[in-house]
């Protein structure tokens, strides 16, 4: 960790659309990306629903902000942790989720998946390792 760089973890635990927290959390993540800190995103509990692909908000009449998740790689956000137990409880698998990718500058800019499905115990470790936890 470079001097002056903090590890920021954005914790997403709420479903999208029913409330605005998912959308406004993303707005913080995008602004935060400009600050050159070490950034990770965590999705657990109902937060995993934020990554389920195939949104169509036209009948509801609200903004479809799903493309913003896909753009996270362009903001150099490459660490997206998704809790396995949360997926399983909800009958979801990784195949239900958006494909989020980033280009790895240490590997000749190869395109790689940003999503890492982790166990509950690993998620607890990730939380413990970070310096600042912004929860939504």
């Amino acid at each position: 960790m470079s001097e002056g760089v903090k590890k920021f973890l954005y914790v997403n635990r709420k479903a999208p659309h029913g409330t605005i927290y998912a959308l406004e959390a993303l707005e913080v993540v995008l602004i935060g990306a400009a600050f050159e800190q070490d950034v990770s995103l965590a999705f657990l509990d109902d937060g995993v629903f934020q990554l389920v692909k195939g949104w169509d908000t036209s009948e509801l009449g609200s903004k479809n902000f799903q493309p913003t998740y896909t753009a996270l790689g362009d903001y150099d956000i490459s660490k997206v942790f998704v809790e396995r137990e949360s997926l399983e409880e909800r009958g979801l698998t990784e195949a239900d989720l958006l494909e989020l990718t980033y280009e790895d500058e240490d590997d000749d800019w190869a395109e790689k998946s940003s999503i890492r499905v982790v166990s509950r115990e690993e998620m607890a470790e990730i939380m413990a390792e970070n310096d600042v936890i912004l929860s939504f």
Partner: protein
Amino acid sequence: MKLGIVVNEGPYTHEASDTAYNFAVAALEKGHEIFRIFFYHDGVNNATRLMVPPQDDRHIQQKWSELAEKHNLDLVVCIAAAQRRGILDENEMKRQGKDAENLAPGFRISGLGQLIEAGIQCDRLVIFGD
């Protein structure tokens, strides 16, 4: 049928306001009468004309105001809930000695009796909240 609608949450933060709006549009399309739409709790925040949502998103206050104008709807904002949250019309501004007001067109401020009256007069009352 005569329907009453209650909106208990503010715009954008909860989906309640969107659901209530879409329900109201569908009810009107089916020829039902909407006796009144009552805004309570944070629902009063739907009625501020000062909101400026991003251009690629819906403008919830304008949607309500336009629907009210088109169908001559009675949009009532609870006065007690509105006072706590800083929603006022010109009358209230003067009465409370405030220097600004923010009520959007198509809304009116009145008492909780208007909610009870809707319960009495309507065939069905549908509540949208958190």
